[in-house]
Structures are given as C-alpha cells and as structure tokens.
C-alpha cells in the first residue's frame, strides 16, 4: 500500500495532474475510502509537505483538502483516544488547516498532558507565538522539551516574533516567560534588549535569571558587532 501511495503522490506532485485528473488516472478513487490508505496517505503528504515549499506545498494542501483526507484528520479530534487527538492536532496544524483552530484550542483543557502540549504546539503552528497569551496566566507548564519544539516550529514555519511579544514577560506562567526570553535569544531580536534588561531587575527566579544573563550577553555582543 505504501508503494502505491508513494507512486500516486509522485505522479500528482511532479506532473501537471490536478486532483480530478489524479482520480481519473490512478487508483486513488478506488482506495480513497480505505482507512489504511487514508492513514498512509496523510502521513506521506505531511512528510512531503515538510520537505517542500511553494507550489508543491500548495498542491499537497489542495490534495489534502479536496480528497477529503482533511475530514479523516478532523475525525481524530472527536476520538476518545488521546493518541488519536494528538495525531489529529498534529496533522491538521502541520497542514495549516485554519478551520481546525477552534477545535484544537478546546484541547488546552484536556486531562492528558500530551494532548494539552500538542494543542499549544498546534495553535502556534496555525497562528504564531502570540498564542502563548492563551496560557500566559494558566498553570500549564512548558518543559524544556516542549519549549524546544515551539522554537523548532517557529524556525521551520518561518514564524516571525511579534513586536508585542515582550508583553508576555508579565505572565504569571514563568515557563512562558522563559520561552519568550529563549525565543528572543534564538532569533537574536536585539530590539528587545531594553525590555529584557528592565525585566532582569524585577525577577528573582534562578532559571530565568540565568537565561536572561545569557540572552542579554548574546544580544549585546551581537549589537556591538553590528555597530
């Protein structure tokens, strides 16, 4: 089945076939309703989408939506199994399905930590790092692993940091504060030096202070080099 899927996707992606032509010229229509086919195809589409940009990416999105595979992923959001929920959130956010946002947002209150974390990651994929506002005053803890994933998403999806990001330094959720500092360091956002310096005077948290010192050092060095 994997070989068939790979062949059909290759045909679709690297020839001038559109979706209707793919249905006519391949076994796609024959297998379309099979669960295993849907599972393998979604996985393959997401994998390809992560490796391509521009026209190819748009074509894959078109296939995902028009073939109804998007509904296969949406159904996972209604599943009672947490692993299905995680898969659904990941599929839909990776494919940038904006209509799934409101459903994904609801998973922030899910009882399973994996689902809550995946919901945050999904929301950031869809709407950017500003989504941290939704957990700024919650007790959802973003551990270092989750923070690394968020930074990776920002980088992979070329998501820019908003200018009001530093407002999140006032969050009650210290893991969000830590992530904001790390994001500023990661993207070398020198325009936030002053806000970070001000914040450094007001915090006593050891981990945050250590991160602030490193970040300010890096930003100042970078600033000096630029001058």
């Amino acid at each position: 089945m994997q070989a068939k899927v790979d062949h059909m996707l290759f045909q679709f992606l690297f020839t001038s076939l559109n979706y209707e032509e793919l249905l006519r010229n391949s076994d796609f229509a024959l297998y379309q309703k099979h669960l295993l086919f849907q599972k393998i195809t979604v996985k393959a589409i997401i994998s390809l989408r992560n490796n391509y940009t521009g026209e190819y990416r748009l074509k894959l999105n078109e296939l995902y939506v028009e073939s109804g595979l998007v509904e296969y992923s949406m159904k996972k959001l209604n599943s009672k199994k947490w692993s299905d929920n995680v898969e659904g959130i990941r599929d839909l956010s990776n494919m940038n399905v904006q209509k799934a946002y409101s459903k994904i947002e609801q998973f922030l209150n899910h009882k399973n930590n994996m689902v809550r974390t995946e919901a945050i990651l999904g929301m950031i994929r869809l709407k950017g790092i500003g989504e941290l506002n939704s957990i700024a005053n919650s007790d959802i803890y973003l551990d270092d692993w989750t923070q690394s994933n968020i930074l990776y998403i920002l980088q992979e999806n070329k998501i820019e940091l908003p200018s009001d990001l530093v407002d999140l330094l006032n969050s009650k959720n210290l893991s969000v504060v830590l992530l904001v500092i790390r994001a500023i360091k990661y993207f070398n956002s020198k325009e936030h030096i002053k806000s970070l310096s001000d914040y450094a005077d007001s915090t006593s948290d050891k981990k945050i202070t250590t991160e602030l010192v490193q970040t300010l050092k890096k930003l100042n060095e970078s600033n000096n080099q630029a001058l």
Partner: protein
Amino acid sequence: MTGIKSLDIAILIFNYFVLFFAISVMLSYIILAIISATSLKSYLRRNKYVNYDVLLTAENTPHISLIAPAYNEGLTIRENVQSLLAIKYNNFDVIVVNDGSKDESVAILISAFDLVKSELDYHAQIPTKDVKAIYTSTNPTFSKLKVVDKYNGGKADALNTGINISKNPYIVCIDVDCIMDKDALLKLAKPFMEQSNKRIIATGGVIRIANNCVIKAGKLVDVKAPDNFLAKVQVIEYLRAFILGRMAWAKMDGLLIISGAFGMFDREIVVNAGGYNPKTVGEDMELIVRMRRFMIEQKQPYAVQYIPDPLCWTEVPETYSILRNQRSRWTRGTAETLWMHRKMLFNPKYKILGFISFPYWLIYEYLAPIIELTGLLITILFVFLGIINWTYFILFFLLVYSFALMFSMLALFAEESTYRRYKTLKDLGKFCIAALIEPFIFHPFTVYAAIRGNWQIIKGTKGWGEMKRTGFNQPPTNVK
C-alpha cells in the same frame, strides 16, 4: 518416604520450599512482564511521532560530557573515539580517561587526534588517583575531545576522574568499546528536558549485543544474530532483562541499576552522592542505589528514567572462561552493593526500594543461585538415598523448563513486535534453538559462576581482572 518421621518432615518442608520459591519466581516474572508490556506500549505510543531533530537546532539542550574510561584498549581506541565524536548531538564533549593502560593507548590517541598537553587544572571534587596529564586537540575538528592520562585506579576511579574534569551539568558514562545508536544522546536527554516537579537524576537505556553484527567506522551497519552459542543465549538473556525486567522496575520507580556500559546522570547529584565507589566491582548498581538513597534522605523529589529503545551495542563474552569471570564479578558486585546498603532492607523510609526492589534483588538475584545449588545437591542426595519422588520431580522439572522457555519466547516476541532488529527467520530460528538449550547449559553455568563469585567473596578476591580486547567480530581474550 523413608519411614523416619523427622526426615520425612524435612523432605516435605524442602519440597514445599522449592515449589514455593519456583512459583514465586515465576509469578514475579509474569508480573514484571505484564508491567513492562503496558509500559513499553505506552512509551511507544507517546514517542510515536517524536521528532528528535528538534534537539539538533535547540540551544537549550542539556550540555553533556561523554565519559569513556579506557584500559588497554589500544587496539580499538582510535575508531572507538572517532565513533563517540561522531554522535548526533550538539552540546557535548568527550572525555576519554586512560586508566594507566600498559599499552600504547595514549600515544595512539595523541597521534590520531593531534593532542597536546593542556594547562587545564584538575580539581578533584571526588577523590581519585593522580592525573598525569590532560590533553586537548590542536585540530578544531576534535575540539570536543579531552583525554586524561592518570594512574591506574580501576573503572570507578577513572569515571570519577572524568566526572571531575567535566564542566557540564550532565554526564554520560559509557564503555569506550560500545557502539552508540546515532540518536542515543537525543533519546537519553529528552527525559531531562521533560522534568518538572521531580528532578531526573539518571536515565538508562537498553544495551544490545553486537557480536556478529556488521560495524563499519564505529557505526552499527547491520544487526545479525551471533553464531556463537553463548552470545546467542546472552541476546535472549539481555532481552529478558532489559525489555521484560528493567522496564517494569522503572515503571514502579524501583530501578536499582543502570548498566555501567551506558547511562546518563545529573552530575551535581553524582558529585553530592560521592561519585562511583572504587571499592566495589558493582559500581554501576551501587551508584544508582546511593544516588537514590541520597535523594530520599535529602527529601528531594526525583525520578530515574529508563528508555526501552536499543541505544547501545556491546560485545559479550564468547568463551566460558570470560563469561565465568564476568558473572562471578557481577555476583560480587551485587553482594557488595546489597551489603553496603543493607540499611534499606524493609526500611519504610525507602518505600518501594526498601520493601520490593531490595528484597527482590537479595532473594531472586543474589540468593537464587545459592538456593538452586542447594536444591540440586539435596535432589542428588535423595536420588542416592532412593527417596526421591520421581513423579513430583519430573512434573516440577517440566514446569520450570516450560516456563523458562515461554519467558524467553515472550522476550523474543516483545522484541519482534516492537523494535524488530533481527529481521530474518534464520536469526529467529537460531534464538529459538538457543532458548531450548539454554536451561541445560547456559543457566547451570551462570549458577556455577555465581557460586564461584560467592567463594571469591569468602576468599577476599577484589578487582575486575583484565580483558584484552581484539576488536569487534573477533573473540576477546582473557588475560587474567
């Protein structure tokens, strides 16, 4: 029966004791296997879509020192160090500690990696034998490498030296000849990044057997079942221990050992707990027990994590003499650790460690061979006296044999249904045949080696002995 009342009662008690012991062993194995299976399933589900490459771009990944003690490893040390330097991870350095080798290990390293004596100071937070020199490379390609040349003090002392040299918050202790999976550090580091209210003090991974596997340029290229009988049985034995045993202990928060061949530790806790104990040959088990005691006594919430993925591949003995020495040493190590920490036994302060893990290790790991030997001797005596109940004996033998076989098959099934590193039916066939024979040859031999270990304790034998390596795909030579 004999007709002598007191003797008959003694025989009856003996029979029931052996039956109770055997059934309790089997029950414990079944319980551990069930816990392992659910835990393994949960681990695989949680990590199904984990993208470890995230860690390759992240700046906040834990900084790790890989510490590799080396003693007379000159034949393979160059490629082994190259293999360590090629590991897929960002924030790490490699500290090779030459523990007073009698061969040309240091000269080989100096030449291979453009090493020069460094001005780095040596501050011994943990007391060790003196350091002769610390080398760093003039070649930027090897900037992550430090080589420490020290006077011989044993593996634990060498590891402690590496811990003292390390400036990173985390250390990975590894046998220099082990082959690491390319993602090994990424997988070991992840639990440390997920810690929140509990401090992760150590993570351990599964050790797999590399005998007969294809290894090129320090990398595992193809996994094959060993041809050597002893190595084949040890593959099954390791699968039983790592997949069906330790996974369960980790789930119950009762893990007492992280293999000395490969484990990652929080350096600060290791130093505060006193480092590896050079007075025992079971320094890997002893360190974990001591770290756990330290955390409990300091009333700090903590966890020890276990990664079921095959992360590290190592050579196992292929000759009876080396296997005997290894197993005797393991027995001494276990005995020493249990004795040093006897305070924990049934001590409510240590919770599951004191009430389950420690007694389990005492009875089913340390005392089991002694009980088995006693049973065997008494059975032989019964045969000579003509008072053995053959029906009971044969049924009991069949029960134990069937169980042992079933458990080995379960371990193979667990491997095949998850990681499936052995891909051919031929390989599986080899293991099945080895599992059939194991209870008649390998198991009695390990019992003998364990008894020998106890005899060595009585005699006061210390130390590791020496094992001269000849490199992968060739049998190591014992030179003790």
